[in-house]
């Protein structure tokens, strides 16, 4: 089970998103470093009465940007007593080219296209994901919903409010059953 986010994901976190998060959690900026390449953030730890420190990278062009974001998450994990993935899911505004396995929980009835709601695991937790589907994926989604099959889909995950939207869809298949649209034949896959 993945418990630590990889550098690819860490580098998608914008500095101002982490700044806003730190501010919300009672951290304060204490100064800037190296011509605004980074900032020093502090918070008093009530239990030890010590000052905690995070060095926040401000320029995504820094060679160690992802590593420093990772360091910040490690500190937050200890301070907030919750997993980095949990914290990350609060910070994440989008993830590009992600593959998700999910179940279809809602379909907005339409002619041949519409919005489908899935529930899948994103960043270690079940999340609601909405997708706009056309044919033939829309038919697949209906089948998945009716027959309680899970789907695997790939695209860019973008956070909108309290749920996610999957855009730039480039894959949408049913799991466990290979449904051939051309021949209308259902074959079971060997897993």
């Amino acid at each position, binding site marked *: 089970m993945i418990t630590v986010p990889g*550098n690819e994901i860490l580098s998608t976190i914008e500095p101002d998103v982490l700044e806003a998060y730190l501010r919300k959690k009672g951290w304060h900026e*204490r*100064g800037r*470093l*190296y011509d605004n*390449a*980074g900032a*020093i953030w*502090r918070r008093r730890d009530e239990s030890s009465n010590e*000052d905690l*420190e995070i*060095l926040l*990278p401000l320029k995504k*062009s*820094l*060679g*160690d*940007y992802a*590593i*420093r974001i990772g360091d910040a998450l490690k500190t937050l994990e200890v301070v907030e007593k919750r997993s980095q993935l949990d914290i990350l899911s609060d910070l994440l505004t989008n993830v590009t080219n992600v593959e998700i396995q999910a179940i279809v929980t809602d379909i907005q009835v339409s002619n041949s296209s519409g919005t489908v709601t899935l529930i899948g695991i994103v960043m270690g937790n079940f999340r609601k994901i909405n997708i706009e589907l056309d044919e033939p994926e829309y038919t697949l989604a209906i089948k998945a919903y009716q027959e309680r099959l899970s789907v695997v889909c790939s695209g860019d995950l973008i956070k909108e409010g309290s749920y996610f939207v999957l855009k730039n869809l480039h894959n949408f298949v049913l799991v466990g059953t290979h449904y051939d649209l051309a021949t209308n034949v259902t074959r079971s896959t060997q897993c």
Partner: protein
Amino acid sequence: MDDNSVDLGLAARGGTGPILSPRLELQLKCTSRDVVEENFLRYPLKLKNYNDSRISTLVPRILVVVLVPDNLADWLHQREEELCLRCCGYWVSLREMSETQNSSTVTVELPRLNRFTVEALQSILQRISFGGFP
């Protein structure tokens, strides 16, 4: 696991400058004495390591080259009174060094004055604590 040429990361407590916990990242190399000249060591650093060490980073990076005797038997001497470890490290910062046309290694100069001692490390961390560079 990400190989960014950093072998060791140090975070010190009790920084007296704006940074309470100054950090330093080290790339460590070990070699025998045939790279030593009068004022410098000339160490052939792999291109990838060279580029990873000169990039702009928030936590400063230095290269430390540890010299050891050619003869394995001379590395360590243990007697009742003492344990003698024969090696001396030298350090250099490659920050802002220029891009190279080399394809496999870059010869890096480490000044012999830059001995990597406890005092040297302490003053490097102090400079970092005040927002400076090694």
